[in-house]
């Protein structure tokens, strides 16, 4: 095994063992950021030792033992005046002497602890970006390098973002707590927002050369499944999972052979993944059965489900979709939702009706730099035969687009509008 292979093998074991490791340590130390640091220490130790010794027979026990040693070292080195640390250190020492039964320690149900981990990583005190980075690190076990690549930033910048976020948590005394009652619902929204941010970063990369980055989508889907497994009674968790499954079901159809984006109505529906659509529809049904039909994510999933269930683009239930967008706009008023409603109304009632909604949004500050506003406007103008205005709108949209592939698509549409092609 060469170094690169050994490295990959260790990271693979790490990914499997990481959740149990960090949750066990967090429970033991009553400190999530510290637990995260120690799991990283254990990974570094494995990367040093395992290439020479091979992967040990019980990697989880090895990693746990290593992390516990480091924990003891650190607690001994640090100020021992704090009662909490003294207590934890004594517990750890007793455990070490008693020749710990690692397997039983590791086989505990990690559900509650995982939920705590997710709530901590996604604390609303942190910026959205910091929450996403921490979640990928602490919950998904991604390395700093992987997170840096996912968000197209330097490894140093990613490391700094993570360190700062962890420090914020520690200094705010939020290192170990689980929200209950009413607070829990608000905090869950913060968690779902982060998961969806991660998904969208992979699904329609805001920046960069590639239109989709499937690894991020898969991480978000995995997080969504974790959430529905450990919080099975939360309709919005099922709604978000449904939304992600239904969107991801179109992945193969969303780009052509050259990697250029293909819009939903032009996609080859034979390439949509029917099993993933079924999973999405099941999650959507579960969310509704739990009484969540008018939830923010459930409504969005319901909209995508209408697309997923249309055999051809012409079969799309645009009236139903427009009604769902209207309800979504009531639940979560936002100019972006209105813009999407304009698209649906434009299909259900004709481009003039859609354009009326778009024109009313022209001055919305939130859409000032949003390339999809002129893109939608251009599309509606094109269908009204107002070619020159459509061309100008597509050019404006292309100038604002951050993704190179998306920009190219908009330039093509501008050129076509200029030639009077609908």
């Amino acid at each position: 095994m060469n170094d690169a292979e050994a490295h990959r093998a260790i990271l693979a074991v790490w990914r499997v063992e990481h959740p149990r490791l960090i949750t066990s340590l967090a429970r033991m130390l009553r400190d999530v950021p510290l637990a995260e640091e120690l799991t990283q220490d254990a990974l570094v130790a494995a990367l040093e030792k395992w290439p020479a010794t091979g992967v040990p027979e019980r990697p989880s026990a090895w990693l746990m033992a290593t992390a516990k040693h480091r924990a003891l070292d650190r607690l001994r080195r640090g100020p021992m005046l704090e009662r909490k640390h003294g207590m934890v250190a004594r517990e750890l020492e007793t455990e070490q002497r008693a020749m710990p039964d690692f397997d039983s320690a590791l086989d505990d149900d990690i559900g509650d602890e995982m939920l705590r981990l997710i709530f901590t990583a996604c604390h609303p005190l942190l910026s959205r970006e910091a929450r996403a980075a921490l979640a990928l690190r602490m919950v998904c076990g991604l390395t700093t390098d992987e997170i840096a690549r996912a968000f197209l930033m330097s490894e140093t910048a990613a490391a700094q973002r993570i360190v700062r976020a962890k420090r914020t948590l520690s200094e705010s005394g939020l290192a170990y707590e689980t929200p209950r009652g009413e607070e829990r619902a608000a905090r869950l929204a913060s968690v779902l927002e982060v998961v969806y941010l991660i998904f969208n970063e992979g699904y329609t990369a805001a920046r960069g050369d590639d239109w989709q980055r499937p690894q991020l989508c898969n991480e978000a889907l995995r997080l969504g499944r974790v959430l529905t497994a450990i919080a099975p009674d939360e309709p919005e968790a099922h709604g978000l999972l449904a939304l992600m499954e239904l969107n991801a079901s179109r992945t193969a159809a969303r780009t052509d052979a050259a990697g250029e984006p293909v819009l939903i109505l032009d996609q080859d529906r034979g390439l949509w993944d029917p099993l993933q659509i079924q999973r999405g529809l099941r999650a959507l049904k579960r969310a509704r059965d739990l009484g969540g039909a008018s939830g923010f994510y459930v409504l969005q999933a319901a909209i995508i489900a209408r697309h997923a269930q249309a055999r051809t683009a012409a079969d799309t239930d645009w009236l139903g979709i427009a009604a769902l967008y209207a309800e979504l706009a009531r639940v979560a008023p936002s100019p972006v939702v209105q813009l999407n409603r304009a698209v649906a109304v434009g299909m259900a009632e004709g481009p003039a009706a859609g354009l009326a909604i778009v024109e009313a949004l022209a001055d919305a500050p939130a859409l000032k730099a949003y390339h999809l506003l002129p893109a939608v406007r251009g599309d509606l103008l094109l269908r009204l035969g107002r070619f020159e205005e459509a061309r100008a709108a597509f050019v404006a949209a292309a100038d604002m687009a951050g993704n190179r592939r998306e920009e190219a698509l908009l330039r093509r549409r501008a050129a076509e509008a200029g030639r009077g092609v609908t």
Partner: protein
Amino acid sequence: MRYMCLIVTAPPGPAAPTPELTEAMNVLANREIQAGRMLGGGGLLPMDAGARVTLAGGKFTVLDGPMVEAKEVIGGYALFEFASKEEAVASAVEFLQLHKDHQPGWEGTCEIRPMIEH
């Protein structure tokens, strides 16, 4: 009851399906998915893309493909919800009929295994 259906052929595994067979299998799978009977499944890449991890005599061995000594190769699987074994058998016959129709000379077995219910 849930059934795991395994497609088994002689090594080196099933030849790549003809476009006609692929299309026919897609149509069938879509029908079964929409009927709520098919819960999962898919074709498997040849063994040289895979590996075999074995525990024997207290020792783990990891063997990368291809498995030259293998007597049979799993080429694909599907997970179904069927009311009876007869339904499972009928479904397997229909699936193999597609192979007979669209990939002349194809030979293999569909193994039907009811899953333990909890």
